């Protein structure tokens, strides 16, 4: 079919091939990205079967909407992450998180000190790391709980615990501080 697909390793090139209708390219993309993306989905959805559903929905969406990817707007990794996160969020929000949080065997959203350490350890983007560290600790915690664990304002408020209005304002002010730090 397309013997050169196996040689491709950039998600951008693979998405371009998917857009031309190559199933082999989609499979290669899955081989390269599925561990990372499944981890993203699992952290949000908590349950393996739900994370698998999210990843399935995401790859079907990639197949159907590859044309909507534009390398000028951002990286393929960012585009894929966005799709997987939104599919996982759709699934957990549809089910209602209370169904999920009843189960003591499920993973737990990380605590702020662990997350701050992880930022240093795992983030290779200097600017993002520096700007996150410059944030107020509450603002940073809220943004991480939302992005990494997929928690809503109300879920963050329950977890911290803190008043809902404060959480909304921390998220918002955190975003605006990040923005001015990342793009002064």
């Amino acid at each position, binding site marked *: 079919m397309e013997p050169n697909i196996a040689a491709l390793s950039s998600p951008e090139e693979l998405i371009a091939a998917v857009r031309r209708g190559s*199933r082999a390219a*989609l*499979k290669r993309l*899955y081989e390269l990205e*599925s*561990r*990372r993306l*499944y*981890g*993203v989905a*699992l*952290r*949000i959805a908590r349950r393996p079967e739900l994370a*698998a559903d999210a*990843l*399935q929905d995401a*790859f*079907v969406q990639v*197949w*159907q*909407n590859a*044309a*909507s990817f534009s390398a000028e*707007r*951002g*990286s393929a*990794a*960012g*585009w894929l*992450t*966005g799709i997987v*996160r*939104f599919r996982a*969020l759709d699934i957990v929000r*549809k089910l209602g998180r209370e169904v999920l949080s009843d189960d003591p065997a499920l993973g737990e959203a*990380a605590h702020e000190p662990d*997350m701050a350490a*992880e*930022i240093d350890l*795992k*983030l*290779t*983007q200097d600017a*993002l790391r520096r700007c996150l560290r410059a944030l107020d600790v509450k603002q940073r915690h809220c*943004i*991480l709980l*939302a*992005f*990494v664990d*997929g*928690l*809503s*304002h109300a879920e*963050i408020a329950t977890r911290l615990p803190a008043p809902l209005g404060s959480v909304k304002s921390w*998220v918002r002010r955190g*975003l*605006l501080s*990040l*923005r001015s730090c*990342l793009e002064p």
Partner: protein
Amino acid sequence: MIPDHPEELQALAGEYVLGVLDPEAAREVEAAVVQNAALAAAIAFWQEQLHPLSRLAAPAEPPAGLWRRIEGALAGAAAPAPPRLWDRVATWRWSTAAAVAVAAGLALYIALAPPAPGPGYVAVLHAPQRADAAFVATGGERGLLLRAVAQERPPGDRGFELWAIPAGAKPRSLGVIPPDGRIELGHLPVPLSEGMTLAISIEPRTGSPTGQPTGPVVFVGALMAAR
């Protein structure tokens, strides 16, 4: 409401990318992004800047059979639709009422539609037994706008869900129509094409639980090239 103020717009786009907006607000952002370049740029900024945070989630091995399931889902997406309601829709599409509706649709399109770049399509949706329009859809490469042109309401606690049905394929949901009868979509799950059927079915207010129409189809129409 999408704010004009740059700071407000940045915050809203960031909240959207984080996923903390409530569903109505998120849908409003998705509808607005088609025509709002500043909003689109702000969303792209946050998506690109924040995605490295996903590294904080530990990678994990997906279930062994998952790729095969995905391949199956892709095959299903392209398979012919099962012979159900949709046959009736397809037959009806070519009836005289449809021709009348298309003519009415073109007139309405000229009267109502904002100019859109690229090829344009129009569809008039109405009850299979009636010729008067209930909804008018206009669209093209950059999305689809559906508007109510009559006072049609779903019964009780139900909602109207909009579907695109490409020839020979299963219906694809375009979302539940808000109570004001207007839905604006930037990203479509299938490209619009001439002859594609749009249909509206009665579903739970949160949308079909199965991803396929479960209630009766109450309005249908076929997309026609508008220019």
